[in-house]
């Protein structure tokens, strides 16, 4: 047994001589295997090209050399053909017979480098490699048989999957033509209802137009009256303030009235007074009517208790405002824009650690709240103003409402059918493989767990990654295309346009599909940053076993 474990060295004598030194080193390499008389590293099938009786012609035909230079450990032929059994040529190859296993060629650089590459060890001749061919051959045969068994079982399942796929496509195709007919009908009805609606709306619109005109007129009149009232009020006020009746209001005339003590210190200062005179010393009646009144009016109203003032800083940039504190002590009033404004300020003042994000979020939220609160307020107001219509108009509105609702219904039916059709078309447009064999994977998802993550592949949809210790779901890519080699594109799927990596590209995943008797993700890796590889087995990737090489076809 021990003897058969080791390869027969070409000739025992050369081997023992190699221990002595130079002669063995130089001459061992000339040797031709005594066993079969073909030069070392040449298969029997090519022995005729190496005829020891003749000069050797390099196989590329470029050179003729004495046969003694074949395997003499010096490269003479450009194609490396003179040194099949040594490492002398950079482009040579060595034939291992590997009896009991598969014969192979190895590159010359592996000849006599101290590492056993051929299972029969024939490429190492300075020491003896163990012969592992029987063992490897047996394992390889078992593996090949297993592969055939797997392929048989898998292929059967593939045919079933394919049948499911074909049936699916057929039924979906039928459903599509059915829906297309339905959609045509629905469209006709929808168009009809639209016409009816338009017809009903015309008289309704005319009647309502009349009401709207009347309303506008009334409003215009009201505005006019309001304006006039305001002007009269202003003139009254001017007369009141212009104590000396000289047609001008001066600072001193303002200062006698406590109404204008803006900071409530008991004195109307020059500054306070001139504020109302547009920072001038005096103001003509004309200017007062135009602008002075607008400034003064709130203070008069306030005096009468009809108006609470906006906060000072809204009116002018006063430096010393104590208002935030005041507001702080009051209960926060979410409906009041003022209160929000100050909340925001408080945040800023207190939360120095995070000056940017939080207040902004807070503000956005408040705006939304405000919008929500505004909307319902307006509607009842509008309702109240709605004029009452006469009976005839009410009837027109009733007819139009009914026509509108009928149209909406018809339109909804049409849109629902269209959406269904769109979905159907999306599915029918997917390439589920020749023979529709990948169809059953559609709508399924397959998980794979490693130490840190759970990966999920939903064929024809997307691929995801989820951290086991929390963290959200990361999309590794959406279904893109089949991306296998040109002659067999169904060996690989590409999911792209996934979530972008920080500072990097959008994630993508390639799915490598191999034959198996079940559908399963067997491994996931990230060989390059943000580029994921899934190994997936599926019967749909199994080839017809009759097309596989039979294990005992080997040499």
């Amino acid at each position: 047994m021990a003897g058969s474990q080791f390869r027969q060295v070409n000739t025992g004598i050369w081997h023992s001589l190699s221990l002595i030194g130079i002669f063995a080193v130089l001459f061992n390499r000339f040797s031709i295997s005594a066993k079969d008389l073909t030069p070392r590293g040449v298969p029997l099938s090519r022995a005729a090209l190496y005829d020891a009786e003749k000069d050797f012609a390099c196989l590329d035909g470029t050179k003729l050399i004495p046969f003694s230079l074949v395997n003499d450990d010096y490269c003479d032929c450009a194609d490396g053909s003179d040194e099949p059994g040594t490492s002398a040529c950079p482009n040579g190859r060595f034939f291992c017979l590997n009896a009991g296993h598969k014969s192979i060629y190895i590159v010359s650089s592996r000849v006599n480098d101290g590492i056993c590459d051929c299972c029969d060890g024939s490429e190492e001749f300075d020491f003896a490699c163990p012969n592992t061919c029987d063992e490897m051959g047996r394992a390889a045969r078992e593996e090949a048989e297993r592969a055939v068994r797997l392929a048989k079982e898998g292929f059967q399942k593939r045919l079933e999957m394919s049948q499911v796929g074909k049936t699916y496509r057929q039924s979906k195709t039928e459903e599509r033509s059915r829906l297309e007919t339905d959609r045509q009908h629905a469209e006709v009805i929808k168009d009809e209802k639209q016409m009816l609606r338009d017809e009903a709306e015309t008289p309704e619109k005319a009647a309502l137009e009349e009401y709207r005109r009347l309303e506008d007129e009334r409003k215009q009149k009201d505005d006019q009256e309001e304006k006039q009232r305001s002007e009269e009020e202003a003139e009254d006020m001017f007369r009141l303030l212009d104590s000396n009746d000289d047609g001008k209001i001066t600072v001193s005339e303002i200062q006698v009235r406590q109404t204008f003590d803006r900071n409530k210190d008991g004195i109307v200062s020059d500054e306070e007074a001139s504020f109302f005179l547009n920072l001038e010393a005096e103001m003509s009646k004309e200017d007062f009517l135009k602008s002075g009144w607008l400034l003064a009016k709130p203070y008069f109203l306030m005096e009468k208790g009809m108006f609470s003032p906006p906060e000072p800083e809204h009116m002018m940039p006063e430096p010393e405002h104590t208002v935030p504190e005041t507001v702080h002590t009051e209960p926060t009033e979410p409906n009041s824009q003022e209160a929000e404004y100050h909340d925001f300020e408080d945040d800023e003042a207190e939360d120095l650690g995070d000056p940017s994000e939080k207040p902004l979020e807070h503000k956005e939220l408040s705006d939304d709240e405000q919008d929500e609160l505004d909307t319902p307020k307006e509607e009842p107001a509008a309702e109240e103003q709605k004029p009452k219509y006469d009976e005839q108009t009410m009837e027109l509105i009733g007819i139009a409402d009914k026509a509108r609702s009928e149209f909406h219904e018809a339109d909804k039916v049409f849109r629902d059918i269209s959406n269904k059709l769109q979905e159907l078309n999306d599915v029918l447009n997917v390439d589920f493989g020749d023979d529709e064999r990948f169809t059953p994977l559609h709508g399924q998802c397959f998980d794979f767990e490693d130490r840190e993550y759970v990966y999920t592949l939903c064929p024809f949809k997307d691929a995801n990654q989820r951290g086991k210790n929390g963290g959200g779901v990361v999309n590794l890519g959406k279904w893109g295309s089949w991306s296998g080699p040109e002659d067999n594109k169904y060996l690989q799927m590409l999911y792209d346009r996934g979530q972008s990596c920080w500072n990097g590209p959008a994630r993508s995943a390639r799915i490598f599909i191999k034959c198996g008797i079940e559908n399963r993700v067997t491994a996931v890796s990230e060989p390059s940053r943000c580029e994921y590889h899934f190994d997936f087995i599926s019967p749909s990737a199994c080839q017809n076993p009759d097309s596989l090489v039979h294990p005992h076809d080997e040499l």
Partner: protein
Amino acid sequence: MIGNLTAKGRKMITIIDPHIKRESGYFLHEDALREDLYVKDKHGKVYEGWCWPGSSSYLDFFDPKTRNYWASRFALDKYEGSTLDLYTWNDMNEPSVFNGPEVTMPKDMVHFGGWEHRDVHNLYGLMQVMSTFQGHLLRSDKRLRPFILSRANFVGMQRYGAVWTGDNMANWGHLKASIPMCLGLSIAGITHCGADIGGFFHDPDAELILRWYQAALFQPFVRNHAHIETKRREPWVFGDKYTALIRSAVRRRYALLPYWYTLFYQNEKTGAPPMRPLWYDFPEDTTTFPIQDQHLVGSALLVHPVTDQGASSVSFYLPEGIWYDFYNYKTYVNGHHTIPVDDDTIPVFQRGGSIIPTKQRIRRASSLMRKDPYTLFVALDQKGEANGSLYIDDGESYEYRKEGKFLEIIFQCKGNVIKAKVVNVNSPFQTVEWIERVVILGLTYKPSSIEGSSKSLGSVKLEGEGEHPFVIRKPGFLVSEDWEIKLH
């Protein structure tokens, strides 16, 4: 994993940093606390900084006790899963502290002997490497040579290991900069220098990585290395064309390993840097002074790698003498030249008057080249003369120092005779290596006959072919004995 890798003659190097994760239950951290091995702050409290594992403390390599502890951890029975084929790369050893001032330790941290960090900062990396080196020595009972790579370095680093130029970027400017950076280090005595091929940050395109390989393979330390967030960049990921081109460049490096090895032997003996500026060998030629886009490898090779994107030509300067293109054998003389370049061109010139030993056999790993034969490149000067040398030992042990187990061979070509002479006759070093081929450049005549002789082969008639180069076929002399070849 180590087993799988090293089964084909390759080695493995793993990264080990000087910061230690502060985690109870982690033996190293607990040992360090118990035995007082950490750097401390001015109050005597163990210093805590932030590095890769999070909260970390830093071993005080200035303390002999720490160095001994650290070295002892490399023993094969202590370093779990390690073998003699596993070597070490010390990184982050400036030391790097993410939350420290200038990304290092505060200046008032205190080291062994009461020295503040400000006084010893630059030495810290060296002290770590020293200790790592000691650990590798001890694990083989001082029999085998360590290999240590370090990012931090200081005067004296050349005794312990190789350095690289740090975290560079994938751009042409950084490729160019790798030459003056390693020249500077070489002249300063840190001779085993290289830059990350392709650039550490960002992604090189195929052209940049190819040109970077071509340049780097003529620098002392060769490594492709990149940030974890870059794309894969192994030589085979840029398509078949670039795989073949990079393979071609890598093979040229392997062929020249005997020459590099000899240069590093000389470096150990004299300090002469293997990679050197032109002025090192041509101190009289002022034109060479500012040149930093080309360099010498030893005194026999001049390299001007292509470092420009889309380059179709390269301009270079050759100092005094005759120069031969190392790959197409074209002859040049002193002066400025411009030559066309294609994807596979690495402009490398052999100086007339030199002899370079190479190994032309292709192998998977340099350790598998040990028994392979030599091809000598004899480049003749104006007088038809040339000289060179070759140093050989077992490539891994200290027997060359302790037992004189090495061969130093001098080659000389003069008056139509090429001679090899073993300098250290009666060396106990044994080898089966032999002379496969002698390539002569610049021969002015075609010899009518060639006669070789050595003690064991006696007198033999040899064949030669070609004119320039003239190739002598298979002299077959053992490299361990004197021989000569006469051209008639």
